[in-house]
């Protein structure tokens, strides 16, 4: 069941479009903001609300990198693996974060604290290597800096 808040926010977002179904991506993100991810039953409920088939809406949800169709940790790390960061050693850094958290790329720590995801270029190439944790951009990274940053996220 969609909550009242979810429904209200979706209706408000839909006002920006002449066609109701066009709010689909906003709607998925609104659900994700409340629940951390988008479970199957929410796809069904949203499909009903927006008069879209489950298959169609799931096709949209699964297309976008930042709509999560599996549970994620309390904090999501987007580690840039594109070219400018690669030139500054992001491969090694990704391995370091992976080892530090004891998870492979794409996994969530057992305590549910972090999910580690590779990311396309984050558009901060002059400060490479970079990563985002939740809404925060972290730049000019090295192993020591990563250690200090990770501690700030409970």
């Amino acid at each position, binding site marked *: 069941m969609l909550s009242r808040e979810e429904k209200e926010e979706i209706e408000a977002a839909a006002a*920006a*479009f*002449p*066609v109701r*179904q*066009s*709010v*689909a*991506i*906003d709607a*998925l*993100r609104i659900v994700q903001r409340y629940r951390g991810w988008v479970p199957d039953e929410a796809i069904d409920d949203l499909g009903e609300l927006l008069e879209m088939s489950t298959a169609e809406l799931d*096709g*949209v949800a699964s*297309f*976008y*990198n*930042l*709509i999560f169709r599996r549970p994620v940790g309390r904090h999501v790390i*987007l580690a840039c*693996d*594109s*070219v*400018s960061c*690669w*030139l*500054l050693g992001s*491969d*090694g850094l990704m391995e370091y974060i992976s080892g530090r958290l004891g998870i492979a790329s794409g996994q969530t720590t057992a305590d549910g604290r972090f999910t580690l995801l590779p*990311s*396309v*270029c*984050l*558009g*901060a*190439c*002059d*400060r*490479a290597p970079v990563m*985002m944790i939740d*809404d925060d*951009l972290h730049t000019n990274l090295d192993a020591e800096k990563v250690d200090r940053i990770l501690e700030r996220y409970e």
Partner: protein
Amino acid sequence: METPLTANIRSGHEPSDIDAYRKNGGYRAVLKALRSMSPAEVAQAVRDAGLKGRGGAGFDAGLKWSFVPMGSDAPRPKYLAVNADEMEPGTFKDRLLMEGDPHQLIEGAILSAYAIEADVAYIFLRREYRLAARRLRQAVAGVYHSGLLGRNIIGSGYSLDIHLHVSGGRYMCGEETGMLNAIEGKRANPRSKPPYPQTSGLWGKPTVVNNVETICNVPHIVNNGAPWFRELSHTDEGGTKIYGASGRVRSPGAWELPMGTTLNELIEEHAGGMQDGYKLRGLLPGGASTDFLTPAHLDVKMDFGSVEAAGSRLGTGTIVVLDDRSCPVGMVLNLERFFARESCGWCAPCWGGLQFAVELLTDIEAGQGRMEDIDLLESLAKMLGPGHTYCALAPGAAEPLASALKFFREDFERHVHEKQCPWNRA
């Protein structure tokens, strides 16, 4: 030297709010246009300026607008989509413009929308640009409050709404027709063209998609005129350009400079040259989907025509520098992995060809490649090239691949002969 696009931007400071922006002459171009210029006159000013699209393709912006049906018979509503989905690897120029001076973009969007008589504008922003989102949202609210957006703006009879749309995240969203599908709430697959967006775009209505930097130029052209704009440049392509450099240079960053500034000046003066212990091996002049150039090309002027004549593309104008201590094969593998992952899967040469290219490059980089694999990569690069797919993702992926095979062929061959990566980064 004039730097109109970045004049209001002070690094580390909050951007101008609407009052400060107006005090510096902001929204003067909107007042001028709505009070004393027809949409056609605004479009003509941009056409005369020769403003080329700053998103990467370099298509004449005024010409693009001219394909939109105008007048009372035109289908309505019409739309403007501001491409703020900056996801081209190595590119960080629009971030600077949006975080640094959000009102400049909104003013440009109002003028661009007016020029095509658009009723609604969407700013399509990538999800990761959180600071830009906050600042743009605040700025849009301020503009509505001041009466420069909404119904019947300053009594001109012209009405416009601007919506900020935050992306679900996918490189394909930056492709012109992929973006239209994304705004419509669908998968961001490209559309078959024709029809072009200018006649049949969002929900089948006339739509123009312009890049952030392109739009930011419009207020200055309206205020100062086409001759002034052309004077800003070193070459016959008008204006300034936000250039940038990343990789092992001393001072990576972004700078507004005259269009046509040379690669050498960008790398040596503005980026401070290479870091100690690193030599310049090659570069991508404008993002991941441009052909490699080499130190032999440093005299090339960075405008669309000159870079094309040198065998590459200006693209986004943000240079990615390959140094001598990084493996060219490894760099190309990184690039092709990116393209393979972001391919939407719509066209077979793109998703199949890129996967295959990644497999071959992975083998070569690991020292398990054969000489025939290099030839295979060469024919793959041709298959990925223009004419085989609906959009430019695969042709973009082919550019660094084909040019790396040309300029760094001996490095590919060394991997095969030595059965390992000579750089062995691990």
